[in-house]
């Protein structure tokens, strides 16, 4: 009986992993396809990679997306860390419930609503104060920072509440001022959460199509916007090459993170 159960479990879990990876692997393999037709195999070739790097539209959009993602992730980390800190370390204050609701709401808000509402806000603000004049990189960064802030806040908050407060209390007893307490004790302790929050924000921003489509102005197409319009128009083997490069970078990052984690574990074991 036990045997049969684990066989069923293993099979269905394996099928789940195959389901998760089959399209990605097919995408990678076909990025090296010589033929223009995605389904016909014409032998190995790197021509779609050179086509990709010679495609100025994609390269410009990629550069814009990287800039937006970098700045948004950085803004989101500063505001999100503050928000997470406020929720877990500031005790009670009027409006805390409202703030914690606001912080978690963007996590589940449908993107079309977030995008539409931010655009309408920008248009209304432009009408009222003349700022932001038109839409472009600035409005995309504000929009992305806002929804990434929520993810950073949740990660930082859970790290802080899992953490023992005694270190901070000890520092306070030794006379640390709130400012130095935060920068010398709390910040180093939550740095893993901040780093993962930054990385998550960076990828979320790099990936976002819907919100960027609403809040970007003409001539400010991010990479997902360009990919989306290309994909809708039809066969685009360069996109396979682009996807493969992005998957490769992410895979390297994850492998690096696992390696780092195992090294840390080994060091901890040695210390014990």
């Amino acid at each position, binding site marked *: 009986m036990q045997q049969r159960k684990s066989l069923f479990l293993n099979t269905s879990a394996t099928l*789940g992993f195959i389901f998760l990876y089959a399209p990605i692997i097919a995408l990678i393999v076909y990025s090296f396809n010589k033929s223009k037709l995605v*389904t016909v195999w014409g032998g190995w070739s790197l021509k779609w990679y050179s086509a990709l790097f010679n495609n100025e539209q994609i390269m410009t959009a990629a550069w814009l997306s990287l800039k937006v993602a970098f700045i948004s992730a950085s803004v989101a980390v500063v505001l999100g860390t503050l*928000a997470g800190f406020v929720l877990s370390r500031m*005790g009670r204050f009027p409006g805390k419930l409202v703030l914690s609701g606001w912080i978690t709401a963007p996590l589940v808000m*449908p993107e079309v*609503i977030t995008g539409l509402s931010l655009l309408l806000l920008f248009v209304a603000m432009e009408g009222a104060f003349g700022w932001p004049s038109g839409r472009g990189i600035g409005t995309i960064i504000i929009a992305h920072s806002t929804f990434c802030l929520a993810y950073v806040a949740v990660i930082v908050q859970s790290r802080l509440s899992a953490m023992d407060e005694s270190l901070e209390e000890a520092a306070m007893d030794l006379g640390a001022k709130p400012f130095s307490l935060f920068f010398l004790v709390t910040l180093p302790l939550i740095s893993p959460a901040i780093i993962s929050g930054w990385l998550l924000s960076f990828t979320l921003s790099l990936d976002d199509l819907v919100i960027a489509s609403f809040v970007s102005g003409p001539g400010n197409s991010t990479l997902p916007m360009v990919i989306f319009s290309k994909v809708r128009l039809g066969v685009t083997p360069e996109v396979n090459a682009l996807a493969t490069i992005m998957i490769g970078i992410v895979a390297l990052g994850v492998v690096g993170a696992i390696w780092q984690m195992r090294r840390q574990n080994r060091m901890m074991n040695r210390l014990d």
Partner: protein
Amino acid sequence: MNAPVSLNIPGQKPVSGLGRLIYTLRHLSIGRWTVISLPSLWLAVFFFVPFLVVFKISLAEPTISIPPYSSLLEWDPEESFATLKLNLGNYIYLFEDTFYLEAYLSSIRIAAVSTFFTLLVAFPMAYLIARSKSTTRILLLSLVILPFWTSFLLRVYAWMGFLKKNGLINEFLLSFGIIDQPLTMLQTDFAVYIGIVYTYLPFMVLPLYTALEKMDITLLEAAEDLGGRPMQNFFLITLPLAIPGIIAGCLLVFIPAVGEYVIPALLGGSDTLMIGKVLWDEFFLNRDWPMASAVATVMLIVLVLPIMLIRNTNSGKEAF
């Protein structure tokens, strides 16, 4: 909170008069209020106020100007008198035209069916991960998270290559003689289900894993000793203990799936009706900003708000 090492424990009011005074002063410091108000102000301006703007514009009339909607306050310079003009027409139209109602219902149906299948696919994976050794566990968890870090759009695009008429699945089935006509899979609701299950799978696996990992394995052993059959043990012990994870995972998949735009736009057919797509088309194709705002307002009030309230009172937060 641990043993009170210091006298000033943040968040706990001292009882004595002097202590309370110090507490109040300390907690009213400029630094503290800067720290609180910075993220609060940002969220107020860029997250909360936008909804008020959406609601306001949903009461306006579409006009051919920039911005393409009428002002609610009409100022009469001669009389120095302002009149508030509210147009409920968008909402009336929303409920009169069955198209919108159908779109809301069909989004809920598609999201619910997809959420159910996501749960079915995710459960064995989460269970296997939770029950494996710590080194394999890290590897399997990374395998689940890895696709989440790659572009969502490109993963949906990968499925287009799988599902289309001359795509890999059809080629495979044809070459083995299982079918003799290529199946139409792309541009159907079926493709949308697959797309949602596929892209939201990590959101289901992770909370399920968190719940299952916390589960006390000795409960299952005890049940087995008492003669419980595997199926019985699963439904009477494992499943009830996984419920917080199931709820969290289902909400994380269901809510964004209801408003999904990209998946129905790329994988769905012209008859696939989802409210996210309707809102998008209303905005970008018809350029009817007030109508799009009305669609968003109803979506927010009917679909998102109740679920968010449940989520806040529930243990859903554990998912993160």
